[in-house]
């Protein structure tokens, strides 16, 4: 008799827990892959394809599924690699390719024939223009991915380095620049 009670009690508990878990998985169901979203959030979103995938989201999906390595994002550099490795819980790996300094695409307008091929290639819609009209790059939206350079039939797109402006300047770490060039300007008055 005692054994029957124990079996029934444990069986009942297991059943109740099972039903509860089944309900919880329905009620608290998460759409999409949260890991993919979190990896996507640390990527630089240049959509350049240098990782071998057609954009940042496909690469994030591949990393999340374990298909791709954590060190394939070139523009993200070491910082993105460390962040992804941390999210995935895997040891960090050396980033093989050095990231180029930030670039912008520039269309030499007098040579442009208005073929719209670069417009179709731009992953962030940063080129404007119409058939047989000059095209131009919206500087503020260009990610410098270079995907527009190759399709251009007349080679009128240059990659130029992003102009340095005062607003983007920041102090370098002490010791990185020579003291006499860029040192701390705190004079001792004592």
């Amino acid at each position: 008799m005692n054994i029957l009670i124990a079996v029934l009690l444990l069986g009942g508990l297991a059943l109740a827990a099972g039903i509860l878990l089944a309900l919880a998985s329905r009620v608290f169901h998460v759409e999409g892959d949260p890991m993919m979203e979190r990896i996507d959030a640390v990527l630089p979103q240049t959509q350049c394809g240098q990782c071998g995938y057609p954009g940042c989201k496909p690469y994030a999906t591949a990393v999340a599924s374990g298909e791709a390595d954590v060190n394939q994002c070139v523009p993200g550099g070491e910082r993105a690699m460390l962040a992804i490795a941390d999210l995935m819980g895997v040891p960090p790996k050396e980033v093989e390719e050095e990231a180029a300094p930030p670039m912008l695409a520039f269309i030499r307008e007098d040579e442009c024939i208005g073929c719209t091929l670069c417009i179709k290639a731009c992953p962030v819609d940063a080129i404007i223009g119409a058939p047989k009209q000059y095209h131009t790059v919206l500087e503020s939206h260009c990610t410098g991915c270079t995907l527009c350079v190759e399709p251009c039939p007349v080679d009128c797109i240059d990659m130029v380095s992003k102009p340095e402006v005062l607003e983007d300047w920041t102090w370098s770490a002490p010791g990185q620049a020579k003291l006499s060039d860029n040192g701390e300007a705190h004079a001792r008055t004592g």
Partner: protein
Amino acid sequence: MPGLVDRLTGLFSAGLAGGVDLKALISHGGFPGGVHPAQMKHTAGSPIVRSPLPPRLILPLKQHIGEACTPTVEVGERVLRGQKVARSQGYVSAPVHAPSSGTVVAIEEHGVPHPSGMGRQCIIIEPDGLDEADESLPPMSDFLDQEPAVIRERIRLSGIVGLGGAVFPTFIKMLRDHHHPVETVILNGVECEPYLTCDHRVMLEHADAVVLGLSVIMHAVDAARGVIAIEDNKPDAVQTMQKALDDSGMGDRVEVRVLPTRYPQGGEKQLIQSVTGKQMPAGKLPLHIGVLCQNVGTAKAVHDAVCLGVPLTERVVTIGGDAVPQPANICARIGTPVPFLLAQCGLEDLSGIRLIHGGPMMGERLPRMNVPLVKSTNGLLAMRQETLYSEHAEEEPCIRCGHCVEVCPAGLVPNELAWHCRNDQFDRGQEYDLFDCIECGCCSYVCPSHIPLVHYFRYAKGQVAHIEKERAFAELSKARSEARDNRLAREQAERAARRSKVRRQAAPAKAEKKDGGADSAARGGETSEDKS
């Protein structure tokens, strides 16, 4: 929580190591910490002299915190003194006015006083020497009868920004907010930086204008009380201001408060704590505790703009430093080239000279000398290279003496904070309240290991801002890329829908014509889809 334990032990050992009772320090005279650097105020007795007009005036399009301005004049145009030459873009901005009459000769990039040594768009004016004034702004002698909004608008149009060095547009500080009424207006006459004496001289020579400016500000924000805060190393300024107050009949509403000299008492947060006893909450404005703080120089500029109708086109600057033969306080037009000012003090040969913009504690070394005087220039210190770097030994390891903790007026733990900044752990740095650092330089000043603490904090703040900017750009790119993917998918779906529609239309024809005509019908369907 090792962090908390570290902080507590840090505080405790700091108190013991320095032989200072921390509690006594905090309760006495307001803000915690602070240092007493040598005052070096050699120019305190030098009356303000007017600078002659320079051959060229260089006006940077951004001399304030906020958005840069856009020029409203063209090259070759003649402008009058006080005429607006660049209008503000966006809300947090202040227009730029021509400091003298003359011709606009160029609008181009020119060096500006900035630690990067980089340039910025500037309007360059060649004065014609006539100094003809633009009198479009009428003086408001009856400002007490004017609506506060009218006065605020006048201050905005006159391009007035905080002249203590922070250059925040003054009219924004004077906005009236019904949730946070301003009770006390504090005029900052502390001038705690060594060497600088320009505010001191303004109080001595323009006391009436400063008092009138204060009454304009108090009227505009409807404040009941005013305080003029002066450190006890300027007894003559205390007397002069008190006399000016009594003469103007404002003595009952405004008091002159004498504060014991301690650096950085002139910092806004520190001054408010010294005067009111209230500590500024992190991330809040003085407005939130019912206080408005303005520099005495700003008060004079407000007086000039409102009572005389003269926009901000000149300021007083202290020229000092051990390389300057005759240090002086000079009232110069905004845009006057710095070498022109140094030459007036007897310094012509600039080789081996290090130029500091501002005071020695918070100022920044300028890699370029050929820059103009701007609205934020309260001091220009020309130092011999040997003096400036003689005590800058190599950075040595932190010995955890805790002196930096003891002197930090913001109550931070600079040594711990510097560890995180050095190792690029900016998240940890922010946990240690990196952004509450006011960069006063007290910690660097007392550090026996010559650690450039403030430089580490400036580096970390810059990096945090840079990362934030990159993240915002990534977010934007992501949104644009997703919008493009959606558009492409939609276009493809539309094309597919059209194709199947054409197929459906072609299907009955196929049934009628039987197998022979079916191929051509299908082909016709495809070509019509291609055309559409």
